């Protein structure tokens, strides 16, 4: 069942095309890797799916409805963004960061209600990071931060998770735990879409891979099949 789709989407900046004629559809339970060399348009695709950019041509569809006309709060309740684990200037506790996911659902209420706290606790419990709740987010490691941001996405109530190079800055063990977690979430029916720089891991872990080269979709299919040695070399111009 398709939840999020692009139909003939093009996007250019300053007259230079960055993405051209991109079409694909993602269903619930899929775990999709977006791969390609730097500058191929991966981040542009993510930003279009999150409506941080609007397409120049074509449409982004959520459940068949155009994203462009959707209300902010409705969109937030359906699609969540998991950025790279970043630094935050003020020392928020993990619990506060996760509870922020409830903002859209509670009409921006200034008070964190008992229900919000319960949703935040449930999300942290789901990812087994409840022990971090009282820690300062700024003091966490990269892997822990990534977990907190995923918990926030779950608290947001969204069933579609969009991740930006989630493995960045994580050691091998942290990467494994992270991707295991994403796999579990996909198995529960979440749609997971992530950019990644690791084709080998993508081939093993993701159910599907979309390869982007020079602003066009070069290949799209089951990750294990699409990510053959030849396509990876062609994608990154590594064999030349």
């Amino acid at each position, binding site marked *: 069942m398709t939840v999020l789709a692009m139909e003939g989407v093009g996007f250019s900046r300053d007259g230079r095309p960055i993405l051209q004629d991109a079409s694909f559809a993602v269903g619930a339970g899929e775990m999709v890797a977006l791969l390609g060399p730097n500058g191929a348009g991966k981040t542009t695709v993510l930003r279009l799916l999150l409506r941080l950019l609007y397409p120049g041509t074509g449409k982004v569809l959520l459940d068949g409805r155009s994203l462009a006309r959707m209300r902010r*709060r409705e969109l*937030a309740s359906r699609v969540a963004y998991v950025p790279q684990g970043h630094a935050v200037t*003020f*020392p*928020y506790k993990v619990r*506060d960061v996760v509870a*922020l*996911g409830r*903002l859209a659902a509670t009409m921006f209420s*200034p008070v964190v209600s008992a229900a919000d706290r319960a949703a935040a606790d449930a999300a942290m419990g789901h990812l087994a990071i409840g022990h971090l709740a009282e820690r300062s987010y700024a003091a966490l490691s990269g892997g822990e931060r990534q977990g907190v941001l995923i918990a926030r996405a779950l608290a947001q109530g969204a069933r579609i998770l969009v991740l930006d190079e989630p493995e960045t800055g994580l050691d091998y063990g942290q990467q494994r735990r992270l991707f295991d977690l994403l796999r579990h979430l996909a198995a529960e029916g979440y749609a997971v879409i992530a950019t990644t720089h690791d084709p080998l891991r993508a081939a093993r872990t993701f159910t599907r891979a979309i390869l982007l080269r020079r602003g066009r979709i070069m290949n799209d299919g089951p990750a294990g099949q699409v990510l053959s040695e030849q396509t990876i070399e062609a994608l990154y111009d590594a064999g030349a």
Partner: protein
Amino acid sequence: MSLRSWCGRLVLVLPAVLLAGLAIVSLGIGRYPVGFGDIASVLLDNGAGMTVERRALLHTILFQTRLPRIAGAIIVGAALSVSGAGYQAVFRNPLVSPGLLGVLAGAGFGAALGIVGNAGATAVHVLSFLGGGLAVAVGVGVARLFDSASILMLVFGGLVSSALFTALLSLLKYVADPEQQLPDIVFWLLGSLTQVDMPDLMAISVPVLGGIVLLSLCGRMLDALAMGDDEARTMGVPVSTLRYGVIVVATILSALTVSVAGMIGWIGLMVPHVARLLAGPRNARVLPLSACLGGAFLLLCDDLARSVSAEEIPVGLIADVLGVAVFVSVLRLVRRGWAA
């Protein structure tokens, strides 16, 4: 209810109680000392046991002379502190003060314009308020010239605007009559609550209280903004509306304070830090707590201003000196909050 949430509530309630206590103590301070017994008697049973003359005298001193001043100090201190906390939140930077976009420079210029033009006291207030708004409009306008609402461009626009209005203020000082107008301008810029009267308070208290409540209600959205613009957007927050809305409200708050009390700038940077130290970084707490602490701090400064020497000291000076002392002494603790 858990111990933690009790502590959370206490951190908001206790400063409010302290502020009220300090206000009552402040009623007794001044040239004509009034004992606590008399204050309590006047406040509680309207001076029942006093002679008619003494009751009238105390009424004049307490309610016509000191109360407006006390209320003025609280309102101005609260407005500046909340304004500073709001600016720090939308700019994601703990070193930002309400003057960032040029509001203080512009308001100073507006007041000086009124003084040089021999406008009346009311016109000086109004010009000062308008000058503050104009300077921020110039700052934001310069930022928009480059087709971007980014934080960096806004800071740049604010620098340009501050420089412009500081230069214009210097020009006015240069052309001002050195016998009468120049001292007036200088005194205005020092910041003082001596001119605050009841009509002033009536004019500013409602917008100031409204602004404080409005910003406090945006507290959680400002927390989301602290995570970054993109993230806040994907959490449903209308980022540009929020940023410009907070800037407008915080600017009005600052400009109102300058229009009645001159330049009292520094506490807008300092007080939110102390609030964050006490209550953590969540803006729904930081903003109202900043209001309480800022009001109490400026009231304390004003009590000193009118009691340490026979000749009154401008409260702006005391607030700056005392503010620096407080800031330096808490800096080590506050720094922990700033991410590495």
